[in-house]
Structure formats: structure tokens, C-alpha cells
């Protein structure tokens, strides 16, 4: 019976929305109170792990930023943020700073405009979010975040908790329709029919800039889903292909430490499509390959 559930069309893998895993996440940042209209300090030199609670040292941080959002209650804002559906119009202020510790509001600016906390950081002025980022350019990543709440007579300094783990996420690999592929063959992959991403949102095909095939020895898909955020460390073989303006590729194009020679019948094969430029570090598509 399971054969009737497999998505297989000729020898190519034609990806459809039913082949995609489902991703769900919650973001629960620390909220600190700070005195309104004051140039407060934020200490973060004890930072030791990232949003997923993976080890991270302060030296990895390349930039700090403060973003102010209006128009959404915090819970809805965080939900839109982790779904990558927040419109730019929610942003009412954005300023950056070198990674000074402690950081002061007055360190932040954009071009020649400085942030003036004595003028703007006040009760009712929106949701103030401070973020710590690593890397440069299009592949920079948000490592930590803190919500700053202006209050009357609040403290004038705050500390970022050393350990992160504000982002909890898991994947569902049990509900998807598996992709069927022959063993040991270098078939093609076509994802032109995909319309929604792993969170159920629109999937603009142009955003896909990487195809990835990964192998891990375990076969318990429920466990793989539960440990999704740590999946990277469990992969024992991994091939990638950068993409630009494409909706199909040949598996023979994949690049890795060794040549990809096709799927085998052991362990679990995952085929993913992702947007490495996007702010959300979650693949748009992850399918499980059933090897014939």
C-alpha cells in the first residue's frame, strides 16, 4: 500500500507541496525593562550560546542592531518574525552599532543619524528589539535577541542572559508524502510545482538558492523531527548545489567532499531547498527520499 503513496514520476524527482515537511517554532525572547528616555547600557560579555542554544562566543558577534516595530502586539510580531512574514512596514526604526560591550543606545545610528534615546525610547513607542549578529553581508545571521521595554523609573542597565535557546523548533516528517528515487542513479530534481513553504506560507521560487542532499544513519523520522534544530550535527554525508534562477537541477551537479553517486537503501536521505540569503534559517522544503 505504501507504494501508492510515493510520489514518483518517471525517473526524475518532481517535488510537490505534499512532499514537504512541516515546521513549527516558537520564539520566546527575554524581556528587560529599562528607564525610558535614558541612554542605558546593555551588557553582553557573558554571552555563551545562540538562539538555538548552540555554543557561541562574544567574539563571533560582528554587529548589534536595534529595531523598533509598531502596529503589532509582541506575540503576533514574534509569530510573524519566525514565519518570515513580517512586512517591512512594521519597522519604524532601525539602527546599528559596532559590537561594543556594554552597548549604549547612543552607540547606535544609521549613516549620519544617531539614535537619541532621550527623545525616542519611551513608553508606548513600539516594541524595541536588540539583536546580535554574526557574519557579513547577505549571509549574516541573527544569533541572539532581547526585547527592551521602556518603563518609567526603570533600571538604566540590563544584561543579556549568557545562554540563549529562545528559539524552539521542530519538524514533522511523518505527515509528508515521501519522494521515491531509484538506488544508485543520478536523476534530476524539479521543484517548479512548489507553492508553499514548510510553514504554509507562500514560496517565491526565486528565493530558492540552494539544493542540498544529506544523509544520516538514523531512520526514526519522529526523532529527526524533534531534533530538527540539531540536525546539522547529525549529518554524516552532505552535498550542496548553489542555485540561481533555476527550478530544476541534476543530482550529478551536487558538490561535496566526495562525488554524489546516488541514493542508497540505508539510513535516511533528506533533500532540501533553502534560501540562504533569507533572514529565516529554515529550509523552505525538506523531503524524505524513499529509495527503491
Amino acid at each position, binding site marked *: 500500500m505504501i507504494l501508492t503513496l510515493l510520489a514518483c514520476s518517471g525517473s526524475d524527482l518532481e517535488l510537490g507541496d505534499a512532499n514537504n515537511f512541516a515546521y513549527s517554532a516558537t520564539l520566546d525572547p527575554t524581556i528587560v525593562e529599562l528607564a525610558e528616555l535614558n541612554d542605558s547600557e546593555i551588557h553582553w560579555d557573558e554571552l555563551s550560546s545562540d538562539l538555538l542554544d548552540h555554543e557561541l562566543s562574544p567574539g563571533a558577534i560582528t554587529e548589534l542592531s536595534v529595531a523598533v516595530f*509598531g*502596529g503589532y502586539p509582541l506575540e503576533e510580531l514574534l509569530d510573524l*518574525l519566525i514565519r*518570515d*512574514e*513580517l*512586512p*517591512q*512596514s*512594521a*519597522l*519604524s*526604526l*532601525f539602527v546599528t552599532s559596532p559590537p561594543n560591550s556594554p552597548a549604549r543606545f547612543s552607540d547606535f545610528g*544609521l*549613516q*549620519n*543619524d544617531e539614535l537619541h534615546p532621550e*527623545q525616542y525610547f519611551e513608553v508606548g513607542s513600539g516594541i524595541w528589539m536588540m539583536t546580535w549578529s554574526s557574519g557579513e*553581508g*547577505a*549571509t*549574516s545571521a541573527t544569533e541572539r535577541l532581547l526585547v527592551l521595554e521602556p518603563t518609567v523609573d526603570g533600571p538604566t542597565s540590563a544584561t543579556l542572559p549568557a545562554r540563549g535557546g529562545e528559539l524552539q523548533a521542530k519538524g514533522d516528517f511523518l505527515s509528508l508524502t515521501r519522494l521515491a528515487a531509484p538506488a544508485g542513479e543520478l536523476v534530476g530534481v524539479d521543484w517548479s510545482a512548489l507553492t508553499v513553504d514548510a510553514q504554509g506560507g*507562500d514560496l*517565491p*521560487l*526565486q*528565493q*530558492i*538558492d540552494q539544493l542540498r542532499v544529506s544523509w544520516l544513519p538514523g531512520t526514526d523520522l519522529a526523532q529527526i523531527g524533534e531534533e530538527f534544530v540539531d540536525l546539522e550535527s547529525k549529518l554524516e554525508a552532505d552535498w550542496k548545489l548553489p*542555485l*540561481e*534562477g*533555476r*527550478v530544476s537541477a541534476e543530482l550529478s551537479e551536487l558538490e561535496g567532499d566526495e562525488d554524489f553517486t546516488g541514493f542508497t537503501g540505508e539510513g535516511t536521505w533528506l533533500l532540501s531547498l533553502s*534560501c540562504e*540569503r533569507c*533572514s529565516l534559517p529554515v529550509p523552505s522544503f525538506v523531503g524524505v527520499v524513499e529509495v527503491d
Partner: protein
Amino acid sequence: MSPVTLILSIACSGPSADIQELQIEVDDDVVTRVHVSWTSSEATIARVDFGVDGLDQSTPWEDSPTTEHHAVLLGLPSLTTARLRIQEQSGALGEDEEVSTGLLPSSVPAFDHEGEEFANWSLLPVSADGGDHSVLVLDGLGQVVWYDQPPTSEFGSFTAELSPDGQSIYYLQNDSVARVRLDGSERENIDLAGWDVHHDLTLLPEGGFAILGKVEGLVEGDAVSGDLLVEVDEDGQERVVWNFFDVLDQLALDAVDLKTVDTGMDFSHANSLTYDADADAYLINLARLHRLLSVDRSTGELNWYLHGAGTSGLEFQPDRLLMRTHDTDLGPEGLLVFVNNTEDDECSWVARVKLEPAFERASLLGAFDSEVCRDVFALGSAHSNDQGGALISWSTEGVLEEIDADWKSRGSISVSLGHAFGYSYPLSSLYPP
């Protein structure tokens, strides 16, 4: 050329000439641009009619009779199948053909459209968090139909303009101005290193352009940064037209203007430049000083200035202050000014101002406030369109809004978090007038 290529040899009986060696090719660099070439048995003047739902667009007629034809289809969205038909002046030639455009690069953002379809195309510079910026043309539904991608930098281009001949897009990039033909046949990078080019450019009717640069000077004994206006003609010859420090004494600076003078500061902060053809003058917006200056193009002398609160310069008594302003536009209905916000008014808006410098006065004719409060903390523009309305770029909110002749909103185009817009222009056509 793209692998998406159709090569058809058709020997059909057209009204006066046969089409041979027809090639329809999607452009490699811009996957929404399509090249159509063919030969004809007799010299003819031809064009291509094309479109998605009907043949509602046309390339321009060729200039003179020829047997070697080439047309470029502009304005198609990505991943779209279009129909096309070759026309010569005496009628259609050959059969209708189809072509499918390609997939946009991953660095080009997707847009959401709400409301009515925009009446014009939109020329839009987009800055992306992470540095992959783009200069785009959107259709009325917010679909990208043309794009160019400046080199990665901290900020993208703040402005892009269509040349007066309708054939090229000019935009600012690091220490230079890029000129890119819409049909892809030419691109040029005009080096302006040394001027510290910033914010805006304005194109000149005879060709060439003017830009804003930086210059050092003294204010109250402090060494500060001011602005220059530099013209660059079609041959690349540069000419300094105006220096902020030459008119400093004519601006009636008051205690508020001088309150925060500090060594090294960006004192005048010019942030927009508009050519006034009627007066052969430039309008220069000095944001920090809340003054809009008219500067004579030939002499660089100050014609007049408008203070946003009317405390000096032209007689002006606005009921809403024009403070913290960005781009300006001289349209048939008056001067449009994008107003960012003030301590008292956090919502950005667009002002329409009647200028009467001959009578040394100005007046506020109208205002447009978006339905929701748009707090644009940087940039922002409003430019008149050919429908009597305007295209507004709520820059840091990542929203374009088109308003009609009654200054009512027709619709909006928005983008996801991580993108901001520069100064944006409505385009009535992607082909020369």
C-alpha cells in the same frame, strides 16, 4: 543566450515579405527581457506586438526599412508565457509565437500588491539587509519586469531615474553613476571618485546629469561637512555649480540651526536634487537646515529659499511644518515634498506647495497622509505621474503607493522585512516616447 531558445524558420506568405530565421531568446542577464530577431525577404519597417493576456504592448517601429530585424520585448513578468506577433506597417507577418520568461535571481525580492493596479510602471531602487541591492521596474501589480543589480555595498542606490530619451536607467552606486540601457545593449559606469557622491542625482534635458558631493568648510569656527553640486555633461566633463559654504551667509541661520554645531558633523545634509527646467535652476533640499534652495544653474547663485517653518526666506505660513524633508518633485500641480516626521508629528506625509518666487511667497496647497500612519525615518519621495496623481515611496516602510488626481490612494505595493526603497519614479512606458 539562454538555453530557452526557439529557432524557427518560417516561410509564410505575409502581406509583403517573408519572415525567415526567426529567433526568440530570453536574455541571459535579465530573464524577463526577450530578444526577437528575424530576416525578411524585402526591406520593411516592423515591430513586435506582444503581451500575456492579449497583444496589448508593442515595441517601437523600426527607424528605417531593413531586412535584418531585432526587437526587444520589455515589461514581461518572470515565469510567464507571452504571445507575440510580428507586424510590418502594412499588416501582420507570420503566425503568433509564444515565449516563456525565466526565473528571477534569488536576490530580487518579491512584492505584494493591494488595491487597484497601478496606472504606471514604477522605477524602484531597493536596499537589502545584507547588501544585495537592486534597481527594479515593477508593473502595476508589483511584478518585477526589469532589474539590475549594483555591486554589494552597505547601502544600495538611493535613487534611479529614466533618461529623457527613455532608453536608459541612471542610478547612483559607490563613487559612480551607472547608466544601463533598458534593452541591454549598453552599460556604462561613470566614475565620480573624489566627490563623495551621495543621495540623489538629477538628469539634464540635453544629456548628462548633476550629483551632490561633499566639501569641508567652517561654521562658527568649527570644521564641518557641507555639500557641493556637480554637473557632469555627456562627455564626462565635470563642473562644480554650487558650494554650500558660498551661500551660507545668505541663509539667515538662527540659533536653532547653530545649536548643535560640532566639528566634523554633516552640517547641511543635502538629500535631494531636482532640476527646474522653467527656471534653469536646481532645487536642493538641505534637510538639517529645513531649507529648500533654488540655485541658478549657470552662476550657482542662490535665487531664493523656502524655510519649512517660514521663519526666513520666501513668505510661507504653513499649517503643517515642512521639517525633516527628503525628495522633491516639480510637477504640473506644484512642488511635491516628502516630509518624514517631526517631534510633534510622527507620521510622514506628502506636501503639495505652490511656489511663487516672483512674489517672494509660497503656500501649502494640500497634503496626503496614508490611511495608516507611516513613520518613514529615512528617505521618502513623491513624483507626479501622467495621470495627474503621484507615486509615493514610503521608503523605510517598504511601501509604494499610487495616488490619483484627487490625491486618493489607488493601491500599494509592499515588500517583506529587510528591504527599503529609495526615491522612486513612475514610468509611463518602457520604450522611448
